[in-house]
Every structure is written in structure tokens, then in C-alpha cells.
């Protein structure tokens, strides 16, 4: 009886740890949020600092640029990775090791180093168009996305799925789009999620290559109005949180994938 009523000691330790961890996470967020709501002139709290940056025409402009680049880089990664990883998993090719090695390489190289290289080696036309950033973001996300997709593909009966789809008359493209991707929906989503999070917050490459996105705009604005800048920073954080959580909840993982993950 007593066992049911009182939490076990191990649960108590976990609970306490979670309280400490959440305080550590929330306190800086809450403090900055409090600052962002201050209205020193009126001596009260309100949304003045938020209307300060929202009234700026650049606000929507850079927001759209960042969202567009993030979506584009996620798309690039999926287009480049899905066919290749599916093929590698199906064929048991000896190139698998090589592709895995190449995909993990960006982890080893500091972004600063990649930025200098991009400045030197990318062709002129690529340097005059900001979509080049989407490709570079995709490179940064490649190690995570590759790992996630590969793990996902290993956990499903890939050969059977494709055989089934093809014996029902589907071509390769259709088999991948309609049978494989739905089966690894959770994994694909995870890869997308990481790519979006990384792209939306990317600062190093963007600023060193002298482009302007929402992140660098926040940095520029932070030099003019301190409370407004805090409000803008908080907005960018919460917007990314909300977006990513929404994506996370939007698609539920299919059942058999969850089970195979739990084995």
C-alpha cells in the first residue's frame, strides 16, 4: 500500500533533478522576457518594445528570407539524401562506408573554416545569390540528417516495402514517395526539424559571407535600442520554439516505427 502512495526514492531524485534543470532552462528565458516587456517611459509593462521592431519594414522582409532559406535547405537535403540512402540500404553497396564518412565530415570542420573556404572557392554566380546559404546550411545539417535517415531506414523492412509497392505497379519514385517515406515519416520529420532549427538560427556562415538574414538583422538591431533588441531576440527564440514544436506535433509517428525503435 505504502508503495503506491509514496513515490519511490528514484522517482524523487528524478523529480528534483528535473526541477533544477527546468529552473536552469527557464530562468534566463523568463528574465529576458521580463526585460523585453519593460516600458521605462511609462513605468509599466507592455508590448511597446515589440511594436518597435514589428513596425520596421525590414522585420517581415528578413523573417521571410530566413523562413525561405530554412525551407529550401530542408528540401535540398531531402532531395539529395533520400534516394541515395534508400539505394545504399537496398543494395548493400560497398560505397556505404564512404558515403557515411563523407556525410559525417562537416561535423569535424568548424563553421568558421567552412565560411572562409566558401568565400574563396564558390563560383562568382553562387556568391551573388543568397540561395547559396541554403546549400551551405544543408551541408551543416548533413551529418545529423544522414544519421537520422539511415537509422530510420534500417529500422523498417525496406526491401519488402519497395518490392510490395513495385509489384503493385509503382515505379521507383512512387515507391519511395508513397511507401518508404510514409514508413519513416517520424525520421524524415526529425531530419527536417533539425535542418530547420539549424538554418533558422545560423549566424556564423551568414555573417562571415556578408549576407543578411533574420539572425544577423537581430544582431544589427541590437546596437540601437537595448530593450527593443531584447524583445526582438525573445521573439526570434519563441517563434523558433513554436514553429518547431508545431512541426513536432503535426505529424504522428506511424505505429510500427515506434515499436521497432523501442525493441
Amino acid at each position, binding site marked *: 500500500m505504502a508503495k503506491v502512495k509514496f513515490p519511490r526514492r528514484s522517482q524523487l531524485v*528524478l523529480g528534483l*533533478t528535473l526541477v533544477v534543470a527546468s529552473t536552469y532552462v527557464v530562468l*534566463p528565458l523568463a528574465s*529576458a522576457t*521580463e526585460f523585453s516587456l519593460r516600458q521605462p517611459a511609462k513605468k509599466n509593462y507592455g508590448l511597446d518594445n515589440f511594436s518597435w521592431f514589428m513596425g520596421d519594414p525590414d522585420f517581415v522582409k528578413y523573417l521571410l528570407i530566413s523562413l525561405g532559406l530554412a525551407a529550401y535547405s530542408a528540401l535540398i537535403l531531402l532531395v539529395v539524401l533520400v534516394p541515395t540512402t534508400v539505394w545504399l540500404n537496398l543494395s548493400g553497396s560497398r560505397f556505404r562506408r564512404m558515403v557515411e564518412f563523407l556525410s559525417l565530415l562537416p561535423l569535424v*570542420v568548424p563553421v568558421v573554416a567552412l565560411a572562409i573556404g566558401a568565400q574563396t572557392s*564558390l563560383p562568382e554566380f553562387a556568391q551573388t545569390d543568397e540561395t547559396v546559404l541554403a546549400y551551405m546550411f544543408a551541408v551543416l545539417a548533413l551529418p545529423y540528417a544522414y544519421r537520422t535517415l539511415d537509422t530510420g531506414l534500417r529500422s523498417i523492412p525496406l526491401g519488402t516495402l519497395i518490392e510490395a509497392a513495385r509489384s503493385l505497379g509503382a515505379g521507383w519514385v512512387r515507391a519511395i514517395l508513397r511507401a518508404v517515406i510514409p514508413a519513416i515519416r517520424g525520421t524524415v520529420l526529425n531530419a527536417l526539424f533539425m535542418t530547420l532549427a539549424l538554418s533558422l538560427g545560423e549566424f556564423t556562415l551568414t555573417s*562571415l559571407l556578408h549576407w543578411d538574414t533574420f539572425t544577423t538583422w537581430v544582431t544589427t538591431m541590437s546596437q540601437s535600442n537595448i530593450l527593443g533588441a531584447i524583445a526582438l531576440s525573445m521573439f*526570434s527564440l519563441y517563434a523558433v520554439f513554436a514553429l518547431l514544436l508545431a512541426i513536432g506535433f503535426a505529424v504522428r509517428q506511424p505505429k510500427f516505427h515506434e515499436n521497432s525503435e523501442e525493441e
Partner: protein
Amino acid sequence: MPKTSSSLSRGSAPLWSAATRKALVALIALAPLLIFIGIFFLAPIGAVVIDSFRNNDGDFSLVNFSDIFKEPIRTAMVTSLSLASVSALTAAIPGGILAYLIESRGSQKLRRIVASISGVLANTGGVPLAFMFIAAMGAEGSATGLLKLAGIDIYGSGFSLYSFWGLVVVYSYFQIPMMVIVFSPAVHGLRREWAEAAMTLGASKRQFWTRVGFPLLFPSFLSATLLLFASAFSAYATARAMTNGTIPLVPTMIGNLLDGNVIFDEVNLAKALAVSMVVVTLVAMVPYLIIQRKSERWQK
């Protein structure tokens, strides 16, 4: 791309020999990824490496690398290395404990929530992160105030957010979640059956940990710490937002060299610095990748 590969592999007429066809399919399937990595990763890195061995006249030379051992770069290198080591260790321990407690005692729901939140937090950085910590732990910050009420005056004891230790505190905000992400799979793979098997064979709890649990988890812990080292060593956005040049660090120094805040002909020096950063991260990441690969065998 897959369109082409489909017509090839399905082709009923044996246009080419089986071996040629197989090689062609491989080429077509791999081409998009290889071209992508080639243009946007290998070519830039190759260019940096080649240029780092050139002096300002474009001739082969090691002058850039010998400059690294001179001031002020030497100090920046030493500071960056110590910051990365301290940040990795101070984040790995709480992060590791957190990952262990959540994986071994938490519900599946809790584990998923923690994983999503960690994913978001591990990506915070730059100006927003700097503001959060200024608001909390700056001289007028809320945490500073709370601690003062509790009788601890952190600024009185010489702490500053804009110092080496301040950076360690700020970095931990993305380093600890990163540790949770990287270390959790290892704890998850440590199966309950193994503890039970050890106990059935008469092992005490302590014996299980010294003979089974710890030896299995330690390599993963070490490799995760190495990853944190590399992450702190290469952090640029947060370093720039927090220090503004007050603490000499390699990434911000490269940034300044690139932004043209210094004499133009030092661009190749920036490249040599970048190459030396790559060497440092390689030294940390290669063991990480090897250990990860080995421990994946028993984690599955």
C-alpha cells in the same frame, strides 16, 4: 535523379552487361550527394588548406603556420583550448547525469519531451543567448538578485559574465542539452536484462556498475565529452556576442581577419588559423566517431 535510375534498373532489354549496369546505377544513385558534398564542402575546405600554405605573394610557404605560435594568436589559441576543455567537462558531468536519470527512470513521454527541448536548446546561441544571460546573470540580472538575497554576491566575489568563466556558464546553456542528446542513446542501450543477469549471477549493485555498467558507458561518455570540446572550440556566434574581442579566441580572431578589421594581406593567415582549428577538431572528433561506431554495436 531517381527517375533515371528507375528506367535503368527496370530496363528489360539488356543494353549493357550486368556489371556495367550495376556501376552505372551506383553512379547515378550517388551522384547527387557526391556532387553536393564536393561543391559545397570539399572544394571550400580544399581551398582553405591550399591557401594556408601560401604567403602573401602566392608562393608556397609555412610562414602562416609559424605565425600561429607568435602573439597575439598564441594567447588566443591557448584561451580557446582551455575554454573548450573547461566547457566540455563542466557540461558533460551534469548533462551525463541528467541523461542517465531521464533515460533510466523517466517515462517514454518524458524522454520524448526532453529530446525535443534539448534539440531546440542545443541550437540556441549568439545575441539572443547573450541577452538571456545578461538578463539573468548580469550585474542587474534576476538570478544575480536572487543569489544576493540568499547571501551570495557573485559580482562581489569577482564574477563577470564577460570573462572566461562567464563564457563557460553561457556555453553550458547549449552544451548540457547537447550532452543529453549525444549521451542518451548509450544509457538507453544499457539494458535492464544485463543488470538482472549480473544480479542473478550474484553480483552486487556495486559490482554491476564497476564491471558492466561503467565500462560500457564510459567510452560513450568520453566521446560525448570530446564532441562538446569541439563544439565549444568552434563556437563563433555566442563568443562574438559575449566577448566583442575582450577575450582573445581563435574563432572571433578569424572573424575579425575576414571582416577586414585588419590589414588585408593577412587573409592567408586566417586560413592557416582555420586549418589549425580543423586539426584540433579532428583530433577530438576522430576518437568520437570511432567510439560511437563501436558502441553502436551493443546499443542496437
